[in-house]
């Protein structure tokens, strides 16, 4: 289960913000453009998402806070996720898993699992076959829910294979 998400420099989260999640239902509300879907994007990104279209950007550095009327742009974006693993839901030998991902303006990236440097691939492998990885159905983006039944037969097939 997801315990905490920390965002720093990710899209509109110029200032470091932590979100603690309930083990039941956590609801996120707010006006248009306030940053709700940006939180969903941060979750995808920290789980290893590379697809630009899914993150609504054209290049990876676009997810770094670009500045606003009142603030200068930042030089990096960082997301940290803390996962509870006492039920060994994830294939790692820790009861708590902390994943960190950073990207810098010069396009350099950093990946850490429990503060140990690793590759993007190592992060993606944790979530393979859990429904949270690429092609999984646990993350439903804005405007995407109808695609599950409208998509053509072979797309649905992929959905099931991911689940099976």
């Amino acid at each position, binding site marked *: 289960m997801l315990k905490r998400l920390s965002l720093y420099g990710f899209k509109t989260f110029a200032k470091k913000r932590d979100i603690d999640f309930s083990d039941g*239902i956590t609801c996120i509300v707010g006006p248009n453009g306030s940053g709700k879907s940006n939180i969903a994007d941060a979750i995808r990104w920290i789980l290893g998402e590379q697809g630009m279209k899914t993150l609504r950007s054209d290049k990876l550095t676009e997810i770094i806070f670009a500045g606003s009327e009142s603030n200068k742009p930042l030089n990096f974006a960082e997301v940290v996720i803390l996962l509870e693993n006492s039920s060994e839901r994830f294939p790692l030998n820790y009861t708590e898993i902390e994943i960190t991902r950073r990207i810098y303006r010069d396009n350099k990236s950093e990946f850490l699992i429990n503060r140990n440097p690793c590759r993007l691939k190592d992060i993606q492998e944790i979530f393979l076959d859990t429904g949270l990885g690429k092609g999984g159905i646990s993350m439903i983006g804005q405007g995407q829910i109808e695609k599950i039944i409208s998509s053509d037969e072979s797309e649905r097939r992929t959905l099931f294979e991911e689940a099976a």
Partner: protein
Amino acid sequence: SRKRFRDTFEMVAEEFSIMFRTLFPGGRAYLSLTDEENVLKSGIEIIVHPPGKNLQSISLLSGGEKTMAAVILLLSIFKIKPAPFCVFDEVDAALDDSNTAILADCVKEFSRYSQFIIITHNKITMEKADVLYGITMEEPGISHIISLKLGDPVLDEFVGSEK
């Protein structure tokens, strides 16, 4: 693997049918394999009958009807193979009051076994939250997060329009 796919499919199909007719008495929904012979290559067909209506292709369903069918399919897959957590971004956008309440109760029930993170503008959905966060732009262009309590008058600023 062919057997495994077949078994999973049958379990999900059964769950899908049961859940749909429980939530929509008088309605029916089914999943079927388009090619029974060739399970590993077969497509999957979805058949949905809202209560009182005759069987037709799912493309004719309304926005709200499609959303409900899709969510029920998703939750059926979850029941067979739960994910560590699930993020829903405004899945209730196309739903009227009645369906929003059905969806919210359904997710509340599932949340006893699974964790849900739900982004919404909808008061009915919000009221099912165990924890509620409001996102604002106190400073232009910068997201700020505040903890909200249900019943807090501040909540009205966060509630989308009355539909």
